[in-house]
Structures are given as structure tokens and as C-alpha cells.
């Protein structure tokens, strides 16, 4: 497989750039490290370090009110923190692109991560958020491309969930 396919963070960042996403809120996750770094070094993006994930949903509403497109990057456990905030996306019909790196879905070694890992997608669906689950590295960038288009052209909240099959499972070794 070519390195360009494996290097999904660079391709996803290029997608955000091409779609003129101007604000990216994030709570750090190991699987998001490179994408966050790309956003931080991009002068066209305001990268917003969030203390908790639901802040990013409200950030996106404010951004959209002001004419900016926003994205939210988080780990699957953060989906649980966003539930009440999600209601405003539907009520106000505000677009939001979410990129969720999974814990607790493939080879997880921390049992505390399993509950949200196994239910994050269903929580999103119950909140009327469109979900694309990706399990192969070559599918990440196309999924984010499609989600970005649907979010901002059709005014939808769309989440791309990236499996631990793509990003690997944390092992707590060494």
C-alpha cells in the first residue's frame, strides 16, 4: 500500500483545507495526534483546545452563526460528554463534521473504555447524527471527504468513526 494512502492525517487535513473549515475544536487523543498537529500549523484554521468535548459542539454553533465551518475531533469516550449539546445541532440545523477515534472497539486492553467504545455509534445515531464507521486505513480520507460534503452542503451533523483497526490499540506496555 502506498504511503499516501496510509498517511490519512495529511489527506484529512487537506480535505478540511479544501472545504474551508476554519475552526477545529479538539480534545487530544493518541490517534488524532498528527491531524491535530496539521491543524495547529495551518494559519487558516483556528485550533481550539477544548477542556471537554461538548464545548466543541457549542463552538461549532457559534462558528456557523458567524459564517465559519467547524469540525470537532475527539475520542469515542467524548461522544458521551456531548449528548445534551447535540440536541442544539438538530434544533438549530447547524452543520458539524466530527472525527471520532475509537477506543474499546478492537483489541482494547482497558475495560473502562469498552462501554462507550461499544455504544458511541448508537449514541450518535440516537442524536440524529449521520455516522460513517471506517475500519480500513485507505477508507479514512474518502469517508471524511464524503462526510465533509454532506455536513456543509446539506447542513447535517456527520461523524466519521475511525476504528482501532486503523489506529491500533493501546497496550500499556513499556
Amino acid at each position, binding site marked *: 500500500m502506498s504511503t499516501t494512502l496510509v498517511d490519512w492525517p495529511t489527506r484529512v487535513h487537506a480535505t478540511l483545507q479544501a472545504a474551508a473549515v476554519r475552526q477545529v475544536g479538539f480534545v487530544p487523543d493518541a490517534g488524532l495526534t498528527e491531524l491535530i498537529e496539521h491543524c495547529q500549523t495551518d494559519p487558516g484554521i483556528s485550533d481550539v483546545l477544548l477542556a471537554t468535548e*461538548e464545548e466543541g459542539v*457549542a463552538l461549532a*454553533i*457559534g462558528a456557523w452563526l458567524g*459564517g465559519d465551518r467547524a469540525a470537532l475531533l475527539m475520542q469515542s469516550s467524548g461522544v458521551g460528554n456531548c449528548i445534551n449539546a447535540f440536541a*442544539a445541532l438538530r*434544533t438549530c440545523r447547524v452543520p458539524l463534521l466530527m472525527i471520532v477515534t475509537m477506543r474499546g472497539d478492537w483489541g482494547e486492553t482497558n475495560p473502562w473504555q469498552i462501554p462507550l467504545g461499544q455504544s458511541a455509534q448508537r449514541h450518535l445515531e440516537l442524536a440524529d447524527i449521520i455516522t460513517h464507521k471506517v475500519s480500513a486505513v485507505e477508507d479514512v480520507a474518502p469517508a471524511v471527504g464524503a462526510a465533509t460534503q454532506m455536513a456543509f452542503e446539506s447542513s447535517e451533523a456527520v461523524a466519521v468513526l475511525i476504528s482501532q483497526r486503523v489506529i491500533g490499540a493501546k497496550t500499556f506496555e513499556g
Partner: protein
Amino acid sequence: MAGISRRQAVAKLLKGRSRLLVVAGLGAPAWDCAAAGDHDLNFYLWGGMGSAAMVGLGLALAQPSYSVVVVTGDGEMLMGLSSLATIAVMAPRNLTIVVLDNERYGETGMQQTHTAHGADLARIADGAGFSWTTRVENLKDADVIGPKLHESQGPGLAVLKVAAEKLPLVLPPRDGALLKDRFRQALLEREAER
């Protein structure tokens, strides 16, 4: 009654507004902003408790040439305390948060909030790294806040200790999509004409 009249304070704050974008937190602060005169560039939250300050941040980052004021209550701000730290990191100069602090959860029966027990939202914002904070106990002192909205010295947070009074409801439109669309139309069309 002890405490500032919230309706008077908000009316003074918004009087003669120019290049000012208003985010109103749910409950009485939204009714106060509506009572001061409904405006296309007011966005009222009817839910999403704890999110008003972050909506203000997204808006302030998107529109740096406008002043953004978040008018919210103590209970709403308490639910979004972490956003004060987030806002301080981004340090938007055009963002001010005005907390109408009656030490009560007004919409649920006037139960006490943490500020009734000593929590000081101005000091919390100061500790988070806000550029300026102030705590105001009377209406006359509240006059200083209006000009500060436009001084671009933010992020700032003002706590107004308001009376714990139940006032007639002045309800803004409650359709979130309508509120969002009219706000964007008024703001973005105006920008397109510039």
C-alpha cells in the same frame, strides 16, 4: 430589594448597539435580552445549558471585527465552567461575558446556585486567564461595562449581582433554525455589502 435590576442593566448594555453580536444564555437572560428589544443579531439559547460562552467563542473567532457579548446567568455559566479555561487559551479580544448573577436557578423554582454559597465567577474567570474581570453590585457601576464591550481588551467577564426577582416573561422566537437563519442572514448579508 437588594441587587441590580437585571432588565434595566441589560437595556442599558444593549442600548444604541452597533456592530454588536449577542448570545443569550437560556432562561431569564434570554428574556432580558428580548425585553431590551428583539434583534436579528441576537441568538437566544432555549436549551444547551452550559454552552452559551462557547457559542460566543465560535462567533468571536469567526467575526473578529464585531464585538460579541454573551449575556447569561450564574447557573448556566456554572455548567460551562471549563469553557472559561478554553476561552482564555484562545484569548479573543472581542469577547465579553456578562453574567447576571441572582444566585438562583430561576427557571426551576429559584433554588440557590453555588454563587449563593460563595462561588465567585469573576475570580474563577480571572484564575482561568481572562484579560479583565469585574464584579458589579449596583446599577450605576454597571455603566462601565457597555463601553468595555467595544474596547477589544478581552476576553472579559463581568458579574452583575442582580436581584432575585421573578419578572414578566418576554419570550423571543423559540425556533432554533429560525433564530440561526435570521442571524446569519443579517450578519453575512451585511458583511457581503461591505
